[in-house]
Protein backbone atom coordinates (compact mmCIF):
# COMPACT_ATOMS: atom_id res chain seq x y z
CA UNK A 1 0.00 0.00 0.00
CA UNK A 2 1.22 3.47 0.66
CA UNK A 3 4.66 4.27 1.94
CA UNK A 4 3.57 5.07 5.46
CA UNK A 5 6.50 4.21 7.56
CA UNK A 6 5.89 3.46 11.17
CA UNK A 7 2.43 4.89 11.38
CA UNK A 8 2.11 5.68 15.08
CA UNK A 9 -1.66 5.19 15.27
CA UNK A 10 -1.34 1.46 15.10
CA UNK A 11 1.27 1.32 17.83
CA UNK A 12 -1.02 2.49 20.60
CA UNK A 13 -3.05 -0.65 20.67
CA UNK A 14 -0.11 -2.85 21.34
CA UNK A 15 0.63 -1.34 24.71
CA UNK A 16 -0.11 -3.54 27.57
CA UNK A 17 -3.10 -2.96 29.85
CA UNK A 18 -0.89 -1.34 32.46
CA UNK A 19 0.38 1.39 30.23
CA UNK A 20 -1.81 4.39 30.58
CA UNK A 21 -2.68 6.14 27.41
CA UNK A 22 -1.61 9.73 27.62
CA UNK A 23 -4.58 12.06 27.50
CA UNK A 24 -4.83 14.06 24.38
CA UNK A 25 -4.24 17.70 25.10
CA UNK A 26 -6.52 20.26 23.57
CA UNK A 27 -4.48 22.33 21.15
CA UNK A 28 -7.01 25.14 21.07
CA UNK A 29 -5.72 28.45 22.35
CA UNK A 30 -7.97 31.17 23.58
CA UNK A 31 -7.40 33.90 21.06
CA UNK A 32 -9.71 36.50 22.57
CA UNK A 33 -6.97 38.66 24.15
CA UNK A 34 -5.01 38.53 20.92
CA UNK A 35 -8.00 39.73 18.95
CA UNK A 36 -8.55 42.46 21.50
CA UNK A 37 -5.00 43.62 21.14
CA UNK A 38 -5.16 43.40 17.37
CA UNK A 39 -8.22 45.58 17.16
CA UNK A 40 -6.82 48.01 19.66
CA UNK A 41 -3.82 48.53 17.40
CA UNK A 42 -6.04 48.81 14.35
CA UNK A 43 -8.07 51.50 16.04
CA UNK A 44 -4.87 53.34 16.90
CA UNK A 45 -3.60 53.26 13.35
CA UNK A 46 -6.97 54.15 11.87
CA UNK A 47 -7.11 57.27 13.98
CA UNK A 48 -3.55 58.39 13.47
CA UNK A 49 -3.35 57.71 9.79
CA UNK A 50 -3.88 60.51 7.33
CA UNK A 51 -5.60 59.02 4.39
CA UNK A 52 -6.17 62.13 2.36
CA UNK A 53 -2.70 63.34 1.55
CA UNK A 54 -2.47 67.03 0.81
CA UNK A 55 -2.45 68.00 -2.83
CA UNK A 56 -0.44 70.63 -4.60
CA UNK A 57 -2.23 73.24 -6.61
CA UNK A 58 0.10 74.94 -9.08
CA UNK A 59 -0.09 78.66 -9.34
CA UNK A 60 1.90 80.98 -11.56
CA UNK A 61 1.78 84.67 -10.96
CA UNK A 62 2.75 87.34 -13.46
CA UNK A 63 5.88 89.37 -13.07
CA UNK A 64 4.75 92.90 -12.24
CA UNK A 65 8.03 94.34 -13.42
CA UNK A 66 7.60 92.88 -16.91
CA UNK A 67 7.86 95.39 -19.74
CA UNK A 68 4.63 96.86 -20.97
CA UNK A 69 4.79 95.30 -24.41
CA UNK A 70 5.23 91.85 -22.93
CA UNK A 71 2.03 92.13 -21.02
CA UNK A 72 -0.86 90.50 -22.74
CA UNK A 73 -3.53 93.00 -23.50
CA UNK A 74 -7.02 92.08 -22.46
CA UNK A 75 -9.85 93.07 -24.70
CA UNK A 76 -12.48 94.79 -22.65
CA UNK A 77 -15.29 92.81 -24.25
CA UNK A 78 -13.72 89.48 -23.32
CA UNK A 79 -13.14 90.38 -19.71
CA UNK A 80 -15.13 88.85 -16.94
CA UNK A 81 -14.47 90.33 -13.55
CA UNK A 82 -15.27 88.47 -10.36
CA UNK A 83 -15.22 90.36 -7.10
CA UNK A 84 -14.89 88.54 -3.81
CA UNK A 85 -15.96 89.93 -0.50
CA UNK A 86 -16.73 88.95 3.06
CA UNK A 87 -19.15 86.14 3.99
CA UNK A 88 -18.38 84.39 0.69
CA UNK A 89 -20.12 87.13 -1.29
CA UNK A 90 -19.41 87.05 -4.99
CA UNK A 91 -20.09 89.83 -7.46
CA UNK A 92 -19.31 89.98 -11.12
CA UNK A 93 -19.57 92.07 -14.24
CA UNK A 94 -18.80 91.51 -17.88
CA UNK A 95 -16.59 93.75 -19.91
CA UNK A 96 -16.05 97.12 -18.34
CA UNK A 97 -17.93 98.32 -15.34
CA UNK A 98 -20.68 100.68 -16.44
CA UNK A 99 -20.38 104.11 -14.88
CA UNK A 100 -23.79 103.73 -13.23
CA UNK A 101 -22.96 100.21 -12.08
CA UNK A 102 -25.85 98.72 -14.07
CA UNK A 103 -23.93 95.61 -15.15
CA UNK A 104 -22.69 94.94 -11.64
CA UNK A 105 -24.37 91.75 -10.52
CA UNK A 106 -24.48 89.75 -7.34
CA UNK A 107 -23.87 86.03 -7.31
CA UNK A 108 -22.58 83.25 -5.11
CA UNK A 109 -20.10 80.42 -5.38
CA UNK A 110 -22.68 78.01 -6.74
CA UNK A 111 -24.03 80.24 -9.49
CA UNK A 112 -20.80 81.86 -10.56
CA UNK A 113 -19.70 78.68 -12.32
CA UNK A 114 -22.65 78.87 -14.70
CA UNK A 115 -21.97 82.54 -15.32
CA UNK A 116 -18.33 81.81 -16.15
CA UNK A 117 -19.31 78.94 -18.45
CA UNK A 118 -21.91 81.12 -20.15
CA UNK A 119 -19.32 83.80 -20.72
CA UNK A 120 -16.86 81.22 -21.97
CA UNK A 121 -19.40 79.84 -24.44
CA UNK A 122 -20.10 83.17 -26.13
CA UNK A 123 -16.64 84.71 -26.10
CA UNK A 124 -13.81 83.86 -28.51
CA UNK A 125 -11.17 81.97 -26.54
CA UNK A 126 -8.36 84.38 -27.32
CA UNK A 127 -10.30 87.29 -25.86
CA UNK A 128 -11.54 85.61 -22.73
CA UNK A 129 -9.85 86.65 -19.55
CA UNK A 130 -11.20 86.28 -16.06
CA UNK A 131 -10.12 88.87 -13.55
CA UNK A 132 -10.40 87.96 -9.90
CA UNK A 133 -10.51 90.88 -7.52
CA UNK A 134 -10.60 89.95 -3.86
CA UNK A 135 -11.33 92.80 -1.48
CA UNK A 136 -9.76 93.31 1.93
CA UNK A 137 -12.45 91.33 3.72
CA UNK A 138 -12.34 88.22 1.55
CA UNK A 139 -10.51 85.16 2.80
CA UNK A 140 -7.91 82.85 1.32
CA UNK A 141 -10.49 80.12 0.84
CA UNK A 142 -12.50 82.36 -1.53
CA UNK A 143 -9.45 83.00 -3.66
CA UNK A 144 -8.46 79.35 -3.86
CA UNK A 145 -12.08 78.41 -4.60
CA UNK A 146 -12.14 80.96 -7.39
CA UNK A 147 -8.81 79.75 -8.80
CA UNK A 148 -10.29 76.30 -8.62
CA UNK A 149 -13.28 77.45 -10.63
CA UNK A 150 -10.80 78.55 -13.27
CA UNK A 151 -9.49 74.99 -13.40
CA UNK A 152 -12.98 73.55 -13.45
CA UNK A 153 -14.13 75.85 -16.25
CA UNK A 154 -10.81 75.32 -18.02
CA UNK A 155 -10.10 79.03 -18.35
CA UNK A 156 -6.68 79.63 -19.87
CA UNK A 157 -6.21 83.22 -18.85
CA UNK A 158 -7.03 84.59 -15.45
CA UNK A 159 -5.46 87.01 -13.07
CA UNK A 160 -5.74 88.06 -9.47
CA UNK A 161 -5.80 91.83 -9.42
CA UNK A 162 -6.24 94.46 -6.74
CA UNK A 163 -9.70 95.90 -6.39
CA UNK A 164 -10.58 99.49 -7.35
CA UNK A 165 -12.11 101.85 -4.80
CA UNK A 166 -15.19 102.32 -7.00
CA UNK A 167 -15.85 98.60 -6.91
CA UNK A 168 -15.48 98.51 -3.13
CA UNK A 169 -18.17 101.19 -2.91
CA UNK A 170 -20.51 99.15 -5.08
CA UNK A 171 -19.92 96.02 -2.98
CA UNK A 172 -20.59 97.94 0.22
CA UNK A 173 -23.75 99.47 -1.21
CA UNK A 174 -25.01 96.06 -2.30
CA UNK A 175 -24.18 94.46 1.01
CA UNK A 176 -25.89 97.28 2.92
CA UNK A 177 -29.10 97.02 0.90
CA UNK A 178 -29.30 93.30 1.44
CA UNK A 179 -31.19 91.82 4.38
CA UNK A 180 -28.74 90.50 6.98
CA UNK A 181 -27.92 86.84 6.61
CA UNK A 182 -29.31 86.68 3.10
CA UNK A 183 -27.17 85.47 0.28
Amino acid at each position, binding site marked *: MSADVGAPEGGGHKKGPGVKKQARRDT*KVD*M*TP*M*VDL*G*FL*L*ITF*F*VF*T*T*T*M*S*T*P*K*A*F*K*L*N*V*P*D*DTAKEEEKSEAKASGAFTVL*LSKDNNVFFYEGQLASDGSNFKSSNFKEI*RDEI*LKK*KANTPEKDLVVIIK*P*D*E*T*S*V*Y*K*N*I*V*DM*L*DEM*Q*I*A*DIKRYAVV*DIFPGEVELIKATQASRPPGGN
Partner: protein
Amino acid sequence: MSKLNKIAKKSTWVDMTAFVDVAFLILSFFMLATKFKPPEVVKIDNPKSVSSENQPEKDVFKVSFDKDGKVFVSFSSDKEGKEKAQLTAEVLSRQKGLGLTPAEISTFIKFSVGGIGVPVTQLKSFLALSDAEYKSFIQPGIPVQDTLNNQLNDYLNALLTGTGGRKPENVMLNGDNATKYPYFKNVLAAFKKNGIFSFKLITALEGIPAGTPLYKKRRDASK
Protein backbone atom coordinates in the same frame (compact mmCIF):
# COMPACT_ATOMS: atom_id res chain seq x y z
CA MET B 1 -40.99 16.64 23.90
CA SER B 2 -38.43 13.95 24.15
CA LYS B 3 -36.70 15.37 21.13
CA LEU B 4 -36.13 18.67 22.87
CA ASN B 5 -34.47 17.04 25.81
CA LYS B 6 -32.12 15.18 23.65
CA ILE B 7 -30.40 18.25 22.25
CA ALA B 8 -26.81 17.95 23.29
CA LYS B 9 -25.16 20.81 25.08
CA LYS B 10 -23.00 22.47 22.50
CA SER B 11 -19.70 23.99 23.31
CA THR B 12 -19.64 27.79 23.15
CA TRP B 13 -16.09 27.74 21.84
CA VAL B 14 -15.65 29.71 18.65
CA ASP B 15 -12.63 29.31 16.49
CA MET B 16 -11.14 32.76 16.34
CA THR B 17 -8.19 31.97 14.12
CA ALA B 18 -9.78 33.38 11.01
CA PHE B 19 -10.84 36.43 12.92
CA VAL B 20 -7.32 37.01 14.13
CA ASP B 21 -6.03 36.57 10.59
CA VAL B 22 -8.30 39.30 9.31
CA ALA B 23 -7.53 41.58 12.22
CA PHE B 24 -3.81 41.35 11.68
CA LEU B 25 -4.18 41.74 7.96
CA ILE B 26 -5.99 45.05 8.48
CA LEU B 27 -3.45 45.97 11.12
CA SER B 28 -0.53 45.42 8.80
CA PHE B 29 -2.28 47.42 6.08
CA PHE B 30 -2.67 50.41 8.34
CA MET B 31 0.84 50.11 9.70
CA LEU B 32 2.28 50.22 6.21
CA ALA B 33 -0.08 52.88 4.92
CA THR B 34 0.38 55.19 7.88
CA LYS B 35 2.56 58.17 7.51
CA PHE B 36 2.71 60.28 10.58
CA LYS B 37 1.96 63.92 10.25
CA PRO B 38 5.06 66.05 10.46
CA PRO B 39 5.10 68.24 13.53
CA GLU B 40 3.41 71.54 12.89
CA VAL B 41 3.52 74.50 15.15
CA VAL B 42 0.30 75.94 13.83
CA LYS B 43 -3.02 74.44 12.98
CA ILE B 44 -3.83 75.12 9.37
CA ASP B 45 -7.07 74.23 7.69
CA ASN B 46 -6.37 74.03 3.96
CA PRO B 47 -8.92 74.91 1.33
CA LYS B 48 -10.03 72.32 -1.19
CA SER B 49 -9.21 72.13 -4.86
CA VAL B 50 -9.70 69.74 -7.75
CA SER B 51 -5.95 69.36 -8.17
CA SER B 52 -4.91 65.74 -7.90
CA GLU B 53 -1.17 66.19 -7.82
CA ASN B 54 0.36 64.90 -4.64
CA GLN B 55 2.22 67.21 -2.36
CA PRO B 56 5.95 66.89 -3.06
CA GLU B 57 8.23 65.88 -0.22
CA LYS B 58 11.68 66.70 -1.43
CA ASP B 59 13.44 70.03 -1.48
CA VAL B 60 10.47 71.90 -0.09
CA PHE B 61 10.41 75.45 1.09
CA LYS B 62 7.07 76.18 2.63
CA VAL B 63 5.46 79.39 3.72
CA SER B 64 2.47 78.88 5.97
CA PHE B 65 0.01 81.43 7.16
CA ASP B 66 -2.64 80.69 9.74
CA LYS B 67 -6.05 82.26 10.15
CA ASP B 68 -4.68 85.20 12.11
CA GLY B 69 -2.20 85.96 9.38
CA LYS B 70 0.83 84.67 11.26
CA VAL B 71 3.46 83.71 8.73
CA PHE B 72 5.90 80.84 9.15
CA VAL B 73 8.64 79.46 6.98
CA SER B 74 9.74 75.86 6.97
CA PHE B 75 12.09 73.60 5.08
CA SER B 76 11.77 69.90 4.39
CA SER B 77 13.87 67.61 6.55
CA ASP B 78 15.76 66.04 3.63
CA LYS B 79 19.31 66.91 2.61
CA GLU B 80 18.41 69.73 0.22
CA GLY B 81 16.01 71.26 2.69
CA LYS B 82 18.57 71.22 5.48
CA GLU B 83 21.22 72.67 3.25
CA LYS B 84 18.93 75.52 2.24
CA ALA B 85 17.89 76.15 5.83
CA GLN B 86 21.54 76.40 6.80
CA LEU B 87 22.34 78.81 3.97
CA THR B 88 19.33 80.94 4.87
CA ALA B 89 20.38 81.16 8.50
CA GLU B 90 23.96 82.01 7.59
CA VAL B 91 23.03 84.74 5.14
CA LEU B 92 20.34 86.15 7.42
CA SER B 93 22.83 86.30 10.26
CA ARG B 94 25.36 88.10 8.09
CA GLN B 95 22.95 90.52 6.44
CA LYS B 96 21.14 91.52 9.59
CA GLY B 97 24.15 91.32 11.89
CA LEU B 98 22.52 88.76 14.17
CA GLY B 99 25.78 87.00 14.96
CA LEU B 100 24.34 83.50 15.06
CA THR B 101 26.70 80.85 16.37
CA PRO B 102 27.09 77.51 14.54
CA ALA B 103 25.04 75.93 17.34
CA GLU B 104 22.23 78.41 16.75
CA ILE B 105 22.36 77.75 13.04
CA SER B 106 21.93 74.04 13.63
CA THR B 107 19.00 74.87 15.92
CA PHE B 108 17.56 76.90 13.05
CA ILE B 109 17.79 73.85 10.81
CA LYS B 110 16.08 71.72 13.44
CA PHE B 111 13.29 74.23 14.12
CA SER B 112 12.82 74.96 10.43
CA VAL B 113 11.23 71.55 9.87
CA GLY B 114 8.33 72.47 12.15
CA GLY B 115 8.22 76.13 11.19
CA ILE B 116 9.87 79.37 12.14
CA GLY B 117 7.71 82.41 12.62
CA VAL B 118 9.58 85.16 14.41
CA PRO B 119 10.71 88.58 13.27
CA VAL B 120 14.33 88.68 12.19
CA THR B 121 15.31 90.69 15.26
CA GLN B 122 13.96 88.02 17.61
CA LEU B 123 15.61 85.17 15.79
CA LYS B 124 18.66 84.92 18.04
CA SER B 125 16.68 84.72 21.27
CA PHE B 126 14.23 82.33 19.62
CA LEU B 127 17.04 79.96 18.65
CA ALA B 128 18.15 79.79 22.28
CA LEU B 129 14.99 77.85 23.14
CA SER B 130 15.15 74.17 23.92
CA ASP B 131 13.11 71.62 21.98
CA ALA B 132 10.45 71.47 24.66
CA GLU B 133 10.28 75.26 24.90
CA TYR B 134 9.98 75.50 21.12
CA LYS B 135 6.87 73.34 21.16
CA SER B 136 5.10 75.49 23.73
CA PHE B 137 6.44 78.83 22.53
CA ILE B 138 3.80 80.88 20.75
CA GLN B 139 5.56 82.40 17.80
CA PRO B 140 4.40 85.85 16.77
CA GLY B 141 4.74 85.10 13.06
CA ILE B 142 6.96 86.82 10.54
CA PRO B 143 5.67 90.38 10.09
CA VAL B 144 4.24 90.90 6.61
CA GLN B 145 1.43 93.39 7.26
CA ASP B 146 3.58 96.40 6.57
CA THR B 147 4.72 96.54 2.96
CA LEU B 148 7.82 98.51 3.94
CA ASN B 149 8.80 96.04 6.61
CA ASN B 150 7.77 92.79 4.99
CA GLN B 151 10.23 90.49 6.74
CA LEU B 152 9.27 87.46 4.73
CA ASN B 153 11.14 89.32 2.07
CA ASP B 154 14.28 89.19 4.25
CA TYR B 155 13.93 85.44 4.70
CA LEU B 156 13.37 84.86 0.99
CA ASN B 157 16.20 87.15 0.04
CA ALA B 158 18.54 85.34 2.43
CA LEU B 159 17.49 82.00 0.99
CA LEU B 160 18.10 83.04 -2.60
CA THR B 161 21.33 84.84 -1.79
CA GLY B 162 22.56 81.76 0.03
CA THR B 163 21.78 79.42 -2.82
CA GLY B 164 23.08 81.85 -5.40
CA GLY B 165 19.66 82.41 -6.95
CA ARG B 166 18.83 78.72 -7.14
CA LYS B 167 15.20 78.36 -6.13
CA PRO B 168 14.00 75.40 -4.12
CA GLU B 169 12.35 72.86 -6.35
CA ASN B 170 9.08 73.08 -4.52
CA VAL B 171 7.95 76.39 -3.16
CA MET B 172 4.77 75.68 -1.28
CA LEU B 173 2.17 77.99 0.10
CA ASN B 174 0.21 76.60 2.98
CA GLY B 175 -2.69 78.88 3.76
CA ASP B 176 -5.64 78.65 6.07
CA ASN B 177 -9.21 78.93 4.82
CA ALA B 178 -9.91 81.92 7.00
CA THR B 179 -6.81 83.98 6.30
CA LYS B 180 -7.73 87.45 5.14
CA TYR B 181 -6.70 88.38 1.62
CA PRO B 182 -4.23 91.20 2.53
CA TYR B 183 -1.93 88.70 4.25
CA PHE B 184 -1.97 86.47 1.21
CA LYS B 185 -1.33 89.49 -0.98
CA ASN B 186 1.69 90.49 1.10
CA VAL B 187 3.08 86.97 1.03
CA LEU B 188 2.66 87.01 -2.74
CA ALA B 189 4.32 90.41 -2.92
CA ALA B 190 7.38 89.04 -1.10
CA PHE B 191 7.54 86.10 -3.51
CA LYS B 192 7.24 88.35 -6.54
CA LYS B 193 9.87 90.72 -5.25
CA ASN B 194 12.33 87.86 -5.05
CA GLY B 195 11.53 86.57 -8.49
CA ILE B 196 9.54 83.53 -7.44
CA PHE B 197 6.58 83.41 -9.78
CA SER B 198 5.73 79.77 -9.69
CA PHE B 199 4.66 77.90 -6.61
CA LYS B 200 2.20 75.40 -5.31
CA LEU B 201 -0.68 75.88 -2.96
CA ILE B 202 -1.35 73.10 -0.51
CA THR B 203 -4.95 72.02 -0.78
CA ALA B 204 -7.17 69.13 0.15
CA LEU B 205 -8.67 66.95 -2.52
CA GLU B 206 -12.10 67.66 -3.89
CA GLY B 207 -14.00 65.84 -6.60
CA ILE B 208 -14.38 67.41 -10.01
CA PRO B 209 -18.02 68.37 -10.56
CA ALA B 210 -19.57 66.34 -13.35
CA GLY B 211 -20.40 68.04 -16.63
CA THR B 212 -17.84 70.81 -16.34
CA PRO B 213 -15.15 71.41 -19.00
CA LEU B 214 -12.41 70.05 -16.75
CA TYR B 215 -14.45 66.93 -16.12
CA LYS B 216 -14.85 66.39 -19.86
CA LYS B 217 -11.16 67.05 -20.44
CA ARG B 218 -10.09 64.50 -17.85
CA ARG B 219 -12.55 61.96 -19.17
CA ASP B 220 -11.30 62.41 -22.73
CA ALA B 221 -7.71 62.16 -21.56
CA SER B 222 -8.32 58.89 -19.77
CA LYS B 223 -9.97 57.29 -22.79
